[in-house]
C-alpha cells in the first residue's frame, strides 16, 4: 500500500509539475497524511530528494465517462479523501463539503463500489461519547452524500470513536488529524 501511494505521489507530482509550470501556488494535496511535499517518491530510491524531472506523462483511461472517471483506478478507492472536523463537532465545514463533492463524483462513476464511512474522534473525552460522536460524523457524511445523489445502498457507516487514531500523540496537530471521517471499501 505504501508503495502504491508513493507511486501515486510521484505520478501526481509529475502531472502537477507539467500542469503548473511557473505557478507559485502549491497544488491542492489529495494525498494521505504523512506524505508531505518534501517526501521522495519510492521509485526514485533517494529519500528526501523529490524527482521533479521533466518527463512526459499522460493518463491512460479505462474508457467511459471521461472527465468524471479517475484514470487507472478500477476498484481502488484511494481517491476518496478524508474529511476533518472541529473539536466536539460533527457539522461539515465548507472544505469538507468540497471534498465530499469530489468523492460523490467518484462514487457516482463507480456505482459498483460500496463504501463504509468510518467516523473517528481525537483521544480526548469519554470513549463512549466519542463512539456516539464518531457515528454522528459518519452519518453527517452519509447524509450529505445522499443529498448529492449517492444511493444509500452504496454506503454504510460505522464509528470507531477514539479507538483508531491515524496519528498517535497528544498534540493539537495529531488531534486535528484524528477528528475525521474516512472511506473504506465494503467487502
Amino acid at each position, binding site marked *: 500500500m505504501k508503495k502504491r501511494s508513493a507511486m501515486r505521489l510521484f505520478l501526481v507530482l509529475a502531472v502537477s509539475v507539467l500542469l503548473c509550470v511557473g505557478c507559485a501556488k502549491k497544488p491542492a494535496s489529495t494525498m494521505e497524511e504523512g506524505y508531505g511535499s518534501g517526501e521522495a517518491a519510492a521509485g526514485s530510491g533517494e529519500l528526501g530528494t523529490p524527482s521533479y524531472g521533466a518527463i512526459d506523462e499522460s493518463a491512460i483511461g479505462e474508457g467511459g465517462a471521461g472527465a468524471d472517471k479517475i484514470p487507472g483506478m478500477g476498484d481502488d478507492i484511494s481517491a476518496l479523501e478524508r474529511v476533518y472536523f472541529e473539536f466536539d463537532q460533527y457539522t461539515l465545514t465548507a472544505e469538507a463539503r468540497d471534498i465530499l463533492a469530489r468523492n460523490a463524483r467518484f462514487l457516482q462513476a463507480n456505482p459498483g463500489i460500496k463504501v463504509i464511512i468510518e467516523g473517528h474522534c481525537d483521544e480526548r473525552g469519554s470513549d*463512549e*461519547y466519542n463512539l*456516539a460522536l464518531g457515528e454522528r460524523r459518519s452519518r453527517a457524511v452519509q447524509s450529505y452524500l445522499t443529498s448529492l445523489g449517492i444511493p444509500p445502498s452504496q454506503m454504510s457507516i460505522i464509528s470507531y470513536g477514539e479507538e483508531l487514531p491515524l496519528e498517535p500523540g497528544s498534540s493539537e496537530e495529531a488531534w486535528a488529524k484524528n477528528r475525521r471521517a474516512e472511506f473504506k471499501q465494503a467487502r
Partner: protein
Amino acid sequence: MRFFLLCLFTLILFPLSGFGFQIEVRSPGQQAIPLAVTTFVPLEGNPPAEVIREFHEVLSGDLDFSGLFRLVDPDAFLSDAGRVGLESGQVDFDQWRILGAQALIKGGVFFNGSQVTVEARLYDVLRRRLLTGQRYSGAAGDVRTMAHAFADQVLKAMTGELGPFKAKIAFISDKTGRKELYLMDVDGHAPAQLTDHRAIVLNPDFSPRSKELIFTSYKTGNPDLYRKEIYTGREARISSRKGLNIAGRYRGDGRAVALALSQDGNSEIYLIGTGGDIHKRLTRNWGIDVDPSWNPDGDKIAFVSDRLGNPHIFVLDIFSLEERRISFGGKYNATPAWSPQGDRIAFSRLEGRTFDIYTVRPDGSDERRLTFGAGNKEHPRWSPDGRFLVYSSDESGKKAIYIMRADGSGRQRISSPGGNCLHPAWSPRW
C-alpha cells in the same frame, strides 16, 4: 480455581464486644488512628517466611490506603510483637500504649505442608480487648486473598461497613496490541487476560449478583454488547443491533441493563433485559445521550447528553422519564458514576486542556474537584463500599489505573506498566 480453594475457608467469628471506634470514614479531616500491624508468628508446621511476609505486606498496604489509620513503625515494636499468646488476656497492651498505638493487629500462622491457616486478631489497645478475629484456611498461594479479607473485616469492625479489598478490578489493556479485557486484584496483583477477541474490547461492568461482566466488543465488526461468565469463560452476545451497543451498565438488582443504542439513528439510552430484549427506551432527544450510571435504588440514571450544545451530566427518572441537568461548569462533562451509597456522583470534566475528576450531589449541588495536576483523569468508578474510586490517568505518559479515597487523597497507581490500561471497574466483594 481459587474461589473453590477458598471454600476451605473456615471463618470463626469471635464475639464483637461493641465497636471500639465509630467513625464516618468519608468525613474529611478526620483523625487517623495509630495502628500497629505485627508480622504474624509461626505457630505450627514451619510456615514459609515468604507467606507470613506477604500477608503482612498486603494487610498493611490495604489498611494504610484506607485512610483510617496511621501505621506505627514496625522498627519500634517491642517484645510483645513476637509473643505467641494471642488471647487478649495474654497481650501486653501497655507495650503498645507506650508506642502510641490505639489499635493492634496480631496473628498466628499454621502450616501442614500445603494448607496455610491464618488466625488474625484486631484489638482495641485502650480498652484491652479483642474487636474482631478471623481464621482463614487455604493454599499458600491464596494468602493475599486472606489478607484482603481481613482488611475488609478490620474496616467493618471500625466503621460498621466491610471494606472492598477482597474484590477484583476489571479493565481494558492494549498490551497485546489490541484492546482486551483483563482482571486484577485491587492492589494490581495478578492481572489475567479474559478475552481474546483481537478487535477492540471496551468498558466492562460487573454483574452485581453473579461472577459475570458485560462489555462492548468489535469482534464481529460492529460495536456489540457481550456478556461473559468469568469462571466458565462462556460468552454471549446480548445486543447486536445496528449501530452502537455501548456503555452497558447493570442495574443494582442485576436484572436489567442500561446501555446506549443508536439503532434509531441517534445515540439514546435504553433499558434491556440481561438477555438483550428491549424493555424501554429512556431518552428521546436529538442530542447524543450516552454513558448511563444507575443509582443504588435502580430508579434513576445519571448520563451524558450534548443536547445543550456540549456534553453535560443529566439525571433521568426511569419511570417518569423526567430529566434534570446536574453539571453546570466546564464545557465537557462525561463518564458519570453514581456512588453505591447514592449520595454522590463522580464524573470527569475538561478544564483547560485536561480532564479531572469531580463529585457532586445528585441534585447538582456541592460540586468538589478531586484530582489536580498533569494528565487526564477519567472514567471514575466507585468501590462497592463507596469509600474509594478507581480511575484511569495518563499522567505517566500512558493510560494507567489508579485508586484513591473518595476525598481525592491517597492516589496510587495499581496497574503494571506495559500498554495502556483504561476503563476500570471495581467488582462487588468477590
